[in-house]
């Protein structure tokens, strides 16, 4: 079990009029392979919580065990924080604001360098990380980070964390401030990282529709407590309670609830748009005696083409269209290859290489 948190409490500015309880008796176990979503209001304690997992805040009460490293409230802990931080990669909010080196390559190399690795190893890791986040290593390595577009900067910042080869990745509001397309790219990247880079991922997000796109387990923070910790399919059975504490529920759940309220026999297990689409298709088939294949149901922001709205649109490869338009654009002059099939093949090769290396060790 990689991470066990027991009775963790934390208070800011203890003993002053600004005193504020951020965490109150938190117990949580994060398992290897978890794709964990954390939701909650601003100030509900979730950010303080993840800073604990990375050893950035020392526990005031309680203890945390992370990959056999124990953090307690002891005054002088004999903990190798560097080792801990290399195992738990942390991507903060607006991570592009931390870029400081004059080239992308140097910036991504900062983490591995701090780990005291050899130059060859560093170079290899940097290349791997930059390619992992969908950027062209040769094209971007010598460019200054500030020349890149917002979305690209963010990916460089994420590469800086990946280059430390963490066993677990924590991302705090990874899509904040990006436009829909940039968001979509980061979401795809996170899914990609889960498969190819870090087996355990924790994501904090305000946007519940975003979380339900990938999480398999959701933890809800409210008022410095964990109020729910459930598999994603189960959580939204508490829709009403979640809304009562002012949290959003996924759109699909909202619509399913509304339809159920109107007397339609909609399933109880709906979380994502795909779930809802499939369920609607089934009900539609039953009522209209049609035979539409529910498995074909897909809800993808950048993959839609249908007749009744697309009047004068040529059919074609959507991915290609996106890449073409991005190439045209001034800021995003670099190719965005995250969706590209070729890229996936390349990544597979990289991942295989990575596996071989790990085996050797």
């Amino acid at each position, binding site marked *: 079990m990689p991470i066990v948190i027991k009775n963790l409490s934390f208070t800011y500015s203890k003993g002053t009029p600004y005193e504020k309880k951020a965490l109150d008796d938190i117990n949580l176990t994060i398992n290897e392979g978890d794709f964990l979503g954390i939701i909650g209001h601003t100030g509900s304690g979730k950010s303080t919580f993840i800073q604990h997992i990375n050893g950035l805040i020392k526990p005031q009460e309680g203890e945390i065990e992370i990959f056999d490293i124990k953090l307690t409230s002891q005054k002088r802990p004999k903990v190798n924080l560097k080792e801990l931080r290399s195992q738990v990669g942390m991507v903060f909010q607006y991570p592009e604001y931390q870029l400081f080196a004059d080239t992308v390559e140097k910036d991504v190399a900062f983490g591995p360098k701090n780990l005291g690795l050899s130059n060859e190893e560093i170079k290899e890791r940097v290349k791997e990380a930059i390619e992992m986040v969908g950027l062209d290593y040769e094209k971007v390595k010598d460019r200054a980070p500030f020349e890149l577009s917002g979305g690209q900067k963010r990916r460089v910042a994420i590469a800086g964390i990946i280059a430390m080869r963490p066993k677990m990745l924590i991302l705090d509001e990874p899509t904040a401030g990006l436009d829909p397309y940039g968001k979509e790219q980061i979401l795809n990247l996170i899914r990609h990282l889960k498969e190819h880079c870090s087996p355990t991922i924790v994501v904090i997000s305000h946007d519940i529709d975003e979380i339900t796109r990938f999480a398999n387990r959701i933890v809800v923070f409210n008022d410095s407590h964990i109020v729910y910790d459930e598999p994603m399919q189960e959580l939204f059975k508490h829709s009403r309670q979640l809304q009562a504490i002012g949290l959003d529920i996924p759109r699909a759940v909202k619509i399913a609830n*509304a339809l159920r309220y109107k007397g339609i026999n909609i399933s109880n297990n709906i979380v994502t748009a795909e779930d809802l689409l499939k369920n609607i298709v089934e009900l539609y088939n039953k009522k209209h005696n049609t035979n539409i294949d529910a498995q074909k149901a897909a809800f993808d922001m950048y993959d839609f083409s249908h007749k009744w*709205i697309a009047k004068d649109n040529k059919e074609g490869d959507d991915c290609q269209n996106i890449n073409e338009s991005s190439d045209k654009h001034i800021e995003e002059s670099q190719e965005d290859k995250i969706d590209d099939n070729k890229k996936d093949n390349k990544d597979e090769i990289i991942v295989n290489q990575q596996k071989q290396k790990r085996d050797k060790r």
Partner: protein
Amino acid sequence: MARAVLLKDVCFSYNANQPDTVEAIKKLSLEIEEGSFVALVGHNGSGKSTLAKLLNGLLLPTSGDVRIFGDSTMDNKKLFDIRKNVGMVFQNPDNQMIASIVEDDIAFGPENLGIEREEIIRRVDWALTKVGMLEHKKGTPFKMSGGQKQRLAIAGVLAIKPKILVLDESTAMLDPQGRSEVLKVAHELNKQEGMTIIHITHFMEEALGADRLIVMNDGEIAFDDTPQNVFRHYEELKNIKLAVPWDTQFAISLAKLGIDTGEITKEEDLIDSLCRLL
């Protein structure tokens, strides 16, 4: 209706006449009527924020003319009249407040205009009431949520009593709750005070309640129509890195499978339509 904004053949380049010049606005013409609610949407770098800064003379056009109620931003003598008419709220709520106490900050604008004390006090109360923050009058912004801070930023601009309110990506850094708070305030100002609203965003959903949706791409206007009509072009929107609202997209996904819900822009429509189908 009076013409609030007029842009004629406006071009704007950053670093004009230099080798690294970037053309952000390309011969753009546009008219906005007083009292309308206009959503201006485009992906990052489409030129929408540049356009906003051209509206109150923070940037001046490289060529062409920008007129606010007939006054050109190129006319130096009119600049402060224009700024009085065009209130502008920016992206980061933390970088717009000048004072540490709410009421002092709201008073900053009218104080600059040399308005007399009693009137300033009236305006501060009015502006804070309009954004629903009157109870925080004596408070400090440090512990407030993003939505609250951004509403204060709006109040700070309202105290100048502008006729046009420009929200320059003012919702981009907010959580969903903050976003809806700000939008609600904008719509109320439009309805109750007849204020012209220009809401710049990259979220199509936020254009739903607008009278008019202008889509920018590459420094040009790609679409300019009612939101419903623009959403029909979802394929082209996708190509310029924009996405239609969730409910519209859900209907499209269904249509792809052969289930026709009809045209959908709002959640209620989708639910009604699904009720009829199922």
